């Protein structure tokens, strides 16, 4: 499928998803006024009716969806009910925070994971060690690892902050170290395993023997010949992880009290904030699809047979 056709496909999918998300959110139990009712004993039946009309909740779901879609086409994404701010004023900073956290964690995971995978493939005696480390990384719950890191580096040694975000004048990177380590350690396992498996396969291919026969060094063979061929499955994995870059990491964000997309989406869904939840979910879906498209294009560039 051509690139323009894929882009059209993405747009149509997003349109369909917006409808599905809106209906699902609308069908979830309780609406904002139901929540307000339990909080405020003074609300009378007349208050409820007035507030439902004020929030447009007295209209059928499909009419609300059409009104929302019409406003979006005019560039009005609405207000967040939870934070009393325009939706994009909230999504922007949360997205930036998630990109910083997950981008750094993913970068760390790819670098360390692929490096370890390659090392294990080139030095088979190290393979059990790397596989054992990958198994530990995959099995260790992020929440638990995060708490351990906080206790050691923030509470006991006092070297790094336990969470939150930098105040004006404070170095932001210090607040990223522990959450990035927590998240990156878990992600690293998948890259290490895939890199090990792909490199092992690539190192037994005939052209590697040819390269050795030509006298190429082991380093050159690994980096210039084996790695580009082993990279195809890794790029697929990276493409899938691209969606996670914007969907955030709700557990890590909660544990380290870091505002991000994961926490924002969770709060928006649980707090009945339709506008915010919809825009955030569509953003995640859109970036995931674009990430997949980019991964496909990269794979085709690396392996023309896939084109």
């Amino acid at each position, binding site marked *: 499928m051509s690139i323009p056709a894929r882009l059209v496909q993405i747009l149509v999918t997003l349109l369909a998803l917006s409808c599905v998300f809106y209906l699902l959110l609308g069908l979830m*139990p*309780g609406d904002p006024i*139901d929540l307000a*009712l339990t909080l405020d004993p003074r609300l*009378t039946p007349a*208050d409820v009716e007035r507030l439902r009309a004020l929030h447009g909740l007295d209209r059928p779901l499909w009419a609300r969806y059409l009104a929302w879609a019409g406003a979006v086409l005019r560039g009005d994404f609405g207000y967040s009910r939870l934070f009393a701010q325009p939706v994009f004023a909230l999504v922007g900073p949360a997205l930036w925070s998630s990109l910083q956290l997950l981008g750094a964690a993913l970068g760390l995971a790819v670098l360390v994971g692929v490096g370890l995978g390659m090392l294990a493939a080139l030095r088979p005696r190290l393979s059990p060690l790397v596989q054992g480390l990958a198994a530990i990384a995959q099995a260790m719950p992020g929440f638990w690892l995060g708490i351990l890191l906080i206790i050691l580096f923030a509470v006991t040694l006092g070297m790094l902050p336990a969470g939150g975000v930098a105040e004006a004048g404070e170095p932001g990177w210090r607040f990223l170290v522990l959450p990035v380590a927590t998240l990156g350690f878990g992600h690293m396992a998948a890259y290490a395993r895939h890199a090990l498996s792909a490199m092992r396969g690539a190192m037994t291919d005939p052209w590697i023997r040819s390269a050795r026969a030509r006298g190429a060094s082991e380093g050159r063979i690994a980096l210039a010949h084996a790695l580009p061929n082993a990279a195809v499955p890794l790029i697929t994995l990276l493409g899938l992880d691209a969606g996670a870059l914007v969907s955030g990491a709700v557990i890590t964000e909660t544990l380290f009290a870091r505002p991000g997309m994961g926490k924002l989406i969770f709060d928006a869904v649980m707090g009945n904030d339709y506008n915010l939840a919809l825009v955030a979910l569509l953003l995640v879906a859109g970036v995931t699809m674009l990430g997949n498209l980019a991964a496909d294009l990269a794979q085709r560039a690396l392996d023309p047979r896939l084109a």
Partner: protein
Amino acid sequence: MRAPILAFATLLAATPAMAQQRETLTIGITQYPSTLHPNIENMAAKSYVLGFARRPLTAYAPDWSLVCLQCETLPTIENGLAVRETTPDGRPGLRLTYRLREGLRWGDGTPMTAEDLLFAWQAGRDESTGFGAAEFYRSAYEMRVIDPRTIEMRLDKVTFDFASMGDFQPLPAHLERAVWQADPRNYRTRTLYDTAPTNPGLWSGPYRVSAVQPGSGITLVRNDAWSGQAPAFREIRVRTVENTTALEAQLLSGQLDMIAGELGLPVEQAAALERRARGRFRVEYRPGLIYEHVDTNLDNPILADRRVRQALMYSLDRARIVAQLFDGRQTVANSNVNPLDQMADPAVRQYPYDLARATALLEEAGWRPGPDGIRRNEAGQRLTLDLMTTAGNRSREQVQQVMAAMWRQAGIEARIRNEPPRVFFAETLSRRRHQGLAMYAWISAPESVPRSSLHSDEIPTAARNFSGQNYPGFRNAEMDRLLEQLPITLSPEARRPLWSRLQAIYAEELPSLPLYFRQDAHVWPQWLDGVRPTGHLNPSSLWAEEWRAR
């Protein structure tokens, strides 16, 4: 030699930071306010943060007495500032006069006047503004400016708590009136409190908002226009950390100076922290008005039998629950009225743990032990009840497990069925879809008449848009009369017997099973003085100018 050098270096690094910390106070709370507008939505986090930056007209003080914050004198019939009169439609009403304190100014230097109160009333009275509960604005049918500091309002009813203005407070008319007039319907989203919260003119307390990080924190700095006692701290940072483990970690790592009791650590976590931290922090436990209880559903034929409800109470060892799960730091409840409330009746019926009595009541009600230990009635129906609460609330889930085990001893099976708070409150409870028992908490003000949770008119039904909070579906003609009579009985002495009777009916009929009144755990650094926890809806931050670093 290495150790002293290291210690010296650490000291060098720490000294300026510690000095700085005395200028600033960083507070951790577990919730972020959804809006900073004082009159829109009720939320504990908003009350706490705004306590630093603005003051309501009246509030309940830490000793639970009603006091003036922005006004000079509380109106009473005796001082002539409250006058009984008849409304235009012939009902008994009141005329109240409030005079603002001298020297009140908004943060931009503009004097606070009666016009600001008039504007707040006008905006609230316009239904399209959407201020939530409109009860006060409906009742206050007229407001007049007498002079720049005095207003006169007329209420269409006479209630004993008439002097309490609740959430009603001045709004800066010089800034907000134009925004409201431009589009009353969208005022909720256009208000400067949310679009430009750092505008000094919005704030009138000892501090004003200087920075907002949505979802994570609000920073406040001294308000130079404040005419009261000068606050000690240059800056107050309120940080939201929803997870209490993370909140505790940030406190221990020194990122937070204190954790507010109003929205902080559960009491058992605070007690554990106190033991571990060994004198690093001061923990003060303040008994409060948060009432943990279990609502019954009286439409369930099993629970409709009062003997079963009483047996449920007798078979619960609440004293042991409090001792073992909460370090003994909650107050066992005997009714819905807190023992600290001036209207609490110490002679109210109590339910000490008494398994024999519970068994006798169940036998009398026709429930006999079955082969598996669970009781059955003559028709063979098992004595099984759903027991619901908010999923993810660790304290409640622990209590729930213990309760289920205790009831099993009496042959009652509790089937645990928890739901996320959103579903539990907004759908199950508000539509009375709980089939058996539902555990949650109420928070109230001192001497708060529980009309919405006990009057038969307040049973949520589709016909009344599911408003009202009488989730058990309790109907009692005498209780209804008491709930109607109490608010209009002005003399405290005359109210006392009514309150006693209310508590007696509650304890006898048990529409809800009283568990305990929660305590707030306030965690302060050793160097902080002057914080006065209240235990009710008005937070300690309303007296933040008294906070001092030792």
